[in-house]
């Protein structure tokens, strides 16, 4: 493990609109997240947590400040480079799953590999890896089902398999259990915790305190600021988890 954090935000601001209508979605946020952390972000709507997630996910750019992901200044990258970065480093798990409806679970899981610029895997290898990922999330028998043939929990597991398939350094989960019943939600949480246990870095937005309690560290956001940054005592094991600033 290198000395630098996986995520480092310095004086990061994001404004929307101009003039009177200007909204400051993020207000000079400073944040470090180390490798292997499981961070939950909480806060009311409008607190800036979605904006933060979008920036962390390289889907959006900050107005001011810098974002270093794995030491690389993301602000200097163009759209294509950001896409490549998402492809290699990031895995998304959305509230509404965001699977491609027309294709099977297996093909959905293979999708990130199709955008691998190095074509490092043969079609057979891609298929085998996607199959292994589905098996990993407990859906080995659902590979040829289309999303509409799967339950919400199953769809979210396909999405997690897709997020993992390119072995990213960061998993971003945006209310991953928001559309699920409590039983399925707990199953998805258990899966995320297992991934964390295996060493994955996870940042998760959630409304539910009992889900957030399962993370190492809980950020509370309000009005574009990180209001509180609490290290969860029960699972404290990361030395570098601290607020920079």
């Amino acid at each position, binding site marked *: 493990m290198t000395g630098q954090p996986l995520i480092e935000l310095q004086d990061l601001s994001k404004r929307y609109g101009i003039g009177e209508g200007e909204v400051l979605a993020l207000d000079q946020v400073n944040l470090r997240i180390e490798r292997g952390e499981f961070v939950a972000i909480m806060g009311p709507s409008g607190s800036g947590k979605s904006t933060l997630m979008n920036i962390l996910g390289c*889907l959006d750019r900050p107005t001011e400040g810098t974002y270093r992901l794995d030491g690389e200044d993301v602000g200097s990258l163009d759209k294509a480079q950001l*896409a490549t970065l*998402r492809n290699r480093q990031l895995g998304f798990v959305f509230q509404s799953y965001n699977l*491609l409806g*027309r294709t099977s679970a297996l093909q959905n899981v293979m999708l*990130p590999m*199709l955008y691998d610029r190095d074509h490092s895997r043969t079609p057979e290898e891609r298929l085998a890896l996607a199959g292994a990922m589905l098996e990993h999330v407990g859906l080995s028998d659902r590979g040829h089902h289309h999303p509409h043939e799967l339950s919400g929990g199953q769809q979210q597991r396909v999405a997690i398999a*897709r997020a993992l398939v390119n072995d990213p350094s960061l998993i971003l989960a945006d209310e991953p259990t928001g559309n699920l019943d409590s039983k399925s939600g707990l199953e998805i949480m258990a899966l995320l915790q297992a991934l964390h246990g295996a060493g994955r870095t996870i940042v998760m937005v959630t409304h539910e305190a009992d889900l957030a309690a399962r993370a190492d560290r809980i950020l509370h956001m309000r009005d574009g600021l990180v209001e509180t940054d609490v290290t969860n005592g029960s699972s404290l094991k990361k030395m570098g988890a601290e607020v920079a600033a």
Partner: protein
Amino acid sequence: MIPREFLRTAWESILKNKLRSFLTMLGIIIGTASVIVMVAVSAGTEAAIKEQITSLGSNLVFINTSFMRFGPGEASSGGGLVYDDATAIQESINGVEGVIVEQGATDSVRAGSVSLDDVEIVGTTPDFPTVRDVDVETGRFLQESEVQRKSKVAVLGAGLAEELFGESDPIGQTVTAGTTKLTVIGVMAPKGSVGGTDFDNRLYTPITIVFQKFASFGFGRIVGDRVRAITIAVAEDQVLEDTILQIELLLSKRHEVSLDSLDFTITTQDDIISTRESTTAAFRSLLSWVAGVSLIVGGIGIMNIMLVSVTERTREIGIRQSVGARPSDIRWQFLTESLLLSLVGGAVGILAGIGGAWLFGAVGDMPTVVVPASILLAFASAAAVGVFFGFYPANRAAQLDPIEALRHE
């Protein structure tokens, strides 16, 4: 992304909306099919015209009296071709294979109990079979001495001979053309109709007989042996230009006019062919505009449907962007789709065009020749339309903001 994946995705998208895809392709189908049919029709027409003109004989030079110089009072004193010009050309110009003069008339022709009205009577000279590329079936054609002595002889076209005499041999029999009795000395081989001239139902007789007996009232008296046209067959294509120059020099001297103000015009078969070709070329350029317009309309159809597709699939685009699709990946995905639409449309259009050209030939009785280059042209145009009209929607898809796209319902 991998090209094969682009193709697969595009193909799935086209198959998903079969009817919509087909309607979108229809413009391209019609466009490419009309390119092929139109080129086939005009190429067929051109070939037919060329064939007609060359089957009149080969290496022909046509000398015509300029009607501009036929002013009042001039007709009898000078200007225009005369019969002796033909003789002079034959005698003094090298490389001339045959010279003929034709003077036509129309009259009734009777033999025994059979009488036919409005038969074309052609007064001509002995070289006619050589120059006009027709053969004598039985007997012989006119001889120089018969022209000189105004012998009352006739050579019958194949059809005319059969109508007048049926199975029996016409040679030596008498036919009455108008009021003139002519002895049949030969029958021509069947040739059919070429360029509007029915070679089989005419009667050939010495031109001197036509001058004497059939020239329209008054005209024959005043004009005498004036002729409207002299046709010359040149032995070799290479000496054509040279021969024309020699004829101009000879005739200008005989007519006592300068080379700048000739009282006749000289045209070759190639001139006639190129005149006809320029007519068909005008026709063809009109048709290619029609084809071009329908291709553009087809392209607009593709653009329209691709824009709809981009909007419909905004969320899909967002998902693809989130897992690492670059703008160029998205652009290629949609370009592949529009290209595939137009190429499939183009391929169907080519088949329809070939079928249509065949149908025009078979049912419409139009000569059609499917030109391979037109297939290539049609296919290339379809591809160009696909890329051109697909580019804007594809680019629009590529420029979508991932967050907006993911939020799209």
